[in-house]
């Protein structure tokens, strides 16, 4: 066979494979949106869930998902940033470092039910955090850390070492060079990590059932005192998220419109993830351009 033919065949196969992936993706998303979007209404988004009657909304669950994401990122991002910087720039190449890397990998492959049960026994019972957003956020941090740390480490490693030498040769400290020169260049990669981990937080149910709980008590969205039990910002209240809600209405709910609620909720979940994804990319691009002066 001549090279041209080989090339044509290879290209064809690759296109076919990509086509399959895209088709599956479009089918899934299309199916969910097609079934769900007609059931989304303003009322659905702004009323609270009903336990026994139909017509319930997902206001609290939607908010809980977003709030949980914010809390999880607040907890996990700084730690992951520190760990990523350490692994990429400071860690000596020895068995201790390798052990850390392996540990991180193991952590990232733990089944979420296991993390959930651990969170239940340790956070909820032992530390007496009860079923709360905080317990949920800490449990999700366990998931998030490996992913974020890895993506930060890899993004930093992919920045040319020449940039680091340049900083060093101008008498800048390693810390200044890392934070002011390397991190801005690594930003898009880090952002991808954040987006991926955010998708995981939105979609996680198993680990949250045992930590953030399955109930969404009524909260007051006008009460900004996060220490007050009725405040929507109180991290110590139980908080059913959208994903948990979908699971619940499908398994143990007695509302007559459970099917409608779960399909609409799934569509909302996908749309929110999409908005978050695009928003984060837009913001990231904006920051990146600003910091690197690229147009």
């Amino acid at each position, binding site marked *: 066979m001549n090279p041209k033919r080989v090339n044509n065949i290879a290209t064809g196969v690759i296109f076919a494979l990509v086509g399959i992936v895209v088709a599956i993706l479009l089918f899934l998303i299309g199916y969910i949106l097609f079934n769900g979007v007609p059931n989304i209404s303003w009322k659905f988004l702004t009323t609270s869930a009903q336990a026994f009657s139909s017509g319930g909304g997902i206001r609290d669950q939607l908010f809980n998902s977003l709030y949980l994401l914010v809390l999880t990122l607040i907890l996990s991002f700084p730690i992951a940033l520190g760990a990523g910087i350490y692994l990429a720039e400071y860690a000596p190449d020895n068995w201790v470092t390798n052990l850390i890397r392996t540990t991180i990998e193991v952590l990232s492959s733990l089944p979420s039910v296991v993390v959930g049960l651990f969170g239940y026994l340790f956070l909820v019972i032992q530390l007496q955090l009860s079923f709360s957003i905080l317990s949920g956020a800490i449990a999700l941090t366990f998931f998030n850390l490996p992913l974020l740390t890895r993506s930060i480490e890899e993004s930093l490693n992919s920045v*040319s070492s*020449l*940039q680091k*030498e*340049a*900083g*060093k*040769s*101008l*008498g*800048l*400290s390693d810390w*200044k060079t890392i934070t*002011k*020169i390397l991190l*801005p*260049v690594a930003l898009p990669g880090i952002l991808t990590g954040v987006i991926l981990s955010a998708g995981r937080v939105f979609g996680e149910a198993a680990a949250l059932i045992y930590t953030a709980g399955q109930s969404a008590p009524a909260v007051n969205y006008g009460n900004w005192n996060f220490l007050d039990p009725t405040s929507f910002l109180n991290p110590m209240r139980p908080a059913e998220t959208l994903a948990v809600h979908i699971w619940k209405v499908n398994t143990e709910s007695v509302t007559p419109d459970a099917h409608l609620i779960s399909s609409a909720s799934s569509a909302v979940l996908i749309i929110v993830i999409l908005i978050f994804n695009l928003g984060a990319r837009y913001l990231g691009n904006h920051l990146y351009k600003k*910091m*690197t*002066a*690229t*147009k």
Partner: protein
Amino acid sequence: MKTYNFDESYIADVPGEKEITAKDVQVFYGDNHAIFNANLKFLRNKVTSLIGASGSGKSTFLRCLNRMNDRIATVKGEIDYQGTNINSKNVNVYEVRKQIGMVFQRPNPFAKSIRENMTFALKENGIKSKDKLEERIESSLKEAALWDEVKDELDKSALALSGGQQQRLCIARAIAMRPNILLLDEPCSALDPISTLKIEETVVRLKENYTIIIVTHNMGQATRISDYTAFFHLGHVIEYDATKNIFENPSMQATSDYISGDFG
């Protein structure tokens, strides 16, 4: 490869005011002995070339002079700069690198605007006044012969410049720190002949104010721009003398073989 006797070397006692002196400098990358007893005296406001085959240790030696080998290699011996041994542990390496600037083989501007490339390190060193920064940008870019080409687009990304312009930007960025010594590691090896000429002219002009040590593979370049030349071979300094003597009348067989191309 021909073998030479490394016990013999010819290190001329060059006359003049010395800026930085390497005494018995040895470098090890783990077990790999990369530099053996280098003894070299570099003169103020002169250009000195370091020549030698690939892997002979030129870069390794150059990087000792501003402590860029820290955490990469073990450097033994003394490097005397203005009466202090800057190779000692308790020396402030950041201060050393501010006074002894460096430009690398591959241009490495920061992924920032041209202006920020110039001002970033200055600001970190406490120069905040806008006027002073502007003045530094302009004078340094002029010294590096880049000002006319970029003066209207200082806020453009430095990565959008051509390779030669990027390299001159790196020179400008280094001299914006007002160092005393400028170390150049094959600054032209990635550039076309015209950019190379521009950098050579820049170097010759810069020696009025700076002491320059330049690694080069280009013998023509060494003869055109340098006053003194050191020849490295397999980690040994074989010969050090006025450039004219090295190229017209070398004292060592190895040197003469290298410059005539009859090497190995």
